[in-house]
C-alpha cells in the first residue's frame, strides 16, 4: 500500500477519483458512465498499443489519468462517439507525436485542444473541489519539482488579468495549474525552463481569453507551451 502511494501517479489517480466521486452525485448517471467509459477506453487502448507494438506490459496509470481528465472536462452531454474519438486521439498522440523518444504534448490536453478547435464545449466538471486540488497539487508540484512552472504561469496570468481589470483569482483554474500544467513528461525540467514554460502558458492564456475566447484558454495555452518545449530543450541545453 505504501509503495502504491509513493508513486505520485497513483496519488493523482486517487485525487481524480475523489473529484469524480464528489461531482458524480450532482451530475447524475450519464456523467458517471461517461467518465468510467473514458477511463476504461484510454487504459485498454494504451495497454493494447504497448503490448502489440512495443511488447511491453505496463500498468496504464498515465492512460487512466488521461481518461479522467478528458472525460471529466469534455461536456458529457455530447454523443458517445465524441468521447471515443477524443480518448483514442489522446492515446495515439502519446505514441505518435514524439521528440527524442518523449511525447511532446500532454496527451489529454492535446485531445481537449482538438475538441476546442471543433467548438465542443469543455465544462470542466472534474474540477469539483478546489481545496483538494490545491492541497494535492502543492504536494505534486513539490514531488515533481515544478514550482517554477507554477510561478512562471502565475506571474503572467495574475499580472495580465489584474492589469486588464479582471480579478485573476476568480478566473483561474486550479485544476489546470496543479494537474495539467505540471504534467512531468511534457513540461520540461529545471527551474529556468520551467519558468519559461509556465510563462508561455500564462501569457497565452490571457491572450486567448482576451482575443479568441471561443477557444478554451487553458488547453490552448498548454498546447502552445508544449509546442515550444522541444525548442526550449534544444536551445537552453545548447546555451
Amino acid at each position, binding site marked *: 500500500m505504501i509503495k502504491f502511494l509513493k508513486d505520485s501517479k497513483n496519488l493523482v489517480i486517487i485525487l481524480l477519483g475523489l473529484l469524480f466521486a464528489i461531482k458524480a452525485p450532482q451530475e447524475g448517471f450519464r456523467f458517471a458512465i461517461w467518465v468510467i467509459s473514458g477511463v476504461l477506453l484510454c487504459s485498454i487502448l494504451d495497454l493494447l498499443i504497448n503490448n502489440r507494438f512495443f511488447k511491453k506490459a505496463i500498468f496504464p496509470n498515465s492512460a487512466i489519468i488521461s481518461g479522467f481528465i478528458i472525460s471529466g472536462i469534455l461536456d458529457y452531454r455530447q454523443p458517445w462517439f465524441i468521447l471515443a474519438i477524443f480518448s483514442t486521439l489522446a492515446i495515439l498522440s502519446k505514441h505518435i507525436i514524439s521528440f527524442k523518444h518523449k511525447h511532446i504534448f500532454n496527451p489529454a490536453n492535446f485531445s481537449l485542444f482538438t475538441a476546442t478547435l471543433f467548438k465542443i*464545449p469543455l*465544462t470542466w466538471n472534474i474540477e469539483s473541489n478546489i481545496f483538494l486540488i490545491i492541497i494535492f497539487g502543492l504536494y505534486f508540484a513539490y514531488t515533481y519539482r515544478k514550482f517554477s512552472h507554477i510561478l512562471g504561469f502565475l506571474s503572467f496570468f495574475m499580472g495580465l488579468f489584474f492589469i486588464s481589470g479582471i480579478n485573476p483569482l476568480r478566473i483561474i483554474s486550479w485544476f489546470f495549474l496543479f494537474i495539467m500544467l505540471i504534467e512531468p513528461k511534457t513540461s520540461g525540467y529545471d527551474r529556468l525552463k520551467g519558468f519559461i514554460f509556465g510563462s508561455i502558458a500564462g501569457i497565452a492564456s490571457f491572450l486567448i481569453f482576451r482575443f479568441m475566447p471561443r477557444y*478554451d484558454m487553458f488547453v490552448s495555452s498548454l498546447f502552445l507551451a508544449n509546442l515550444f518545449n522541444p525548442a526550449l530543450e534544444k536551445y537552453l541545453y545548447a546555451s
Partner: protein
Amino acid sequence: MKIILSLILVSVILSYSDYSYGDGDHMHKEVMQVEQNAGICPVLHEPASKEYSYVYEGKTYYFCCAMCVEEFKKDPQKYISKIKEIKSEAYQFGFSPDPVVVKKGDIVKLVITSRDVTHGVYIKEYGINVTVTKQEAKKIEFFADKAGKFDIVCSVYCGKGHSSMKGKLIVEE
C-alpha cells in the same frame, strides 16, 4: 516515420477544425447564420434575408421570400404573437432569467449580455453555442420546435464555478 505521422495527424485536425460541430443536425449552422443576418422568417421559420422586409408598427420584420411578406401582411398579429424576445444575462455562475420558458412553435430571440467575464451559451438540443464578452450583446434566434427541458450551460471557462453554471430552457407543448 513518426515525424510524418505526427504531421499528418496535426494537419488533418487543423484542416477539419473549421467545421462547426453542432448537434449533428442543421440547426447549428442556421443559428450561426441568423446571428449575423436577419433572423428567422416568422412565417416559414427559415433563415430570413434582408432583401425581404416589412415595417409594421415601427418595427422591421425580415422574411425568407416575397410570398411570406404577403402572407404576413394579411394578419401580422398572428405571427408577431409567436415571437418571444427575452433579455438574458450570464454571470459568474448562472443565467438570468432562469428558467427561460417559451412555447413550442415560438420564435425565440435571446439577447444575451455578460455581467462580468466572458461566458459561453450552449444549448445542445438547439445547436446553439455562442460566446458573449462583457462589452457586447449577442442576439440568438431559434425556432422552438422541440418541447422539453433543456440545459443551458456555459461553454467558456469562467472561473471555479464554471462546471455548475447552468440554466434551463423549458419549451412547453
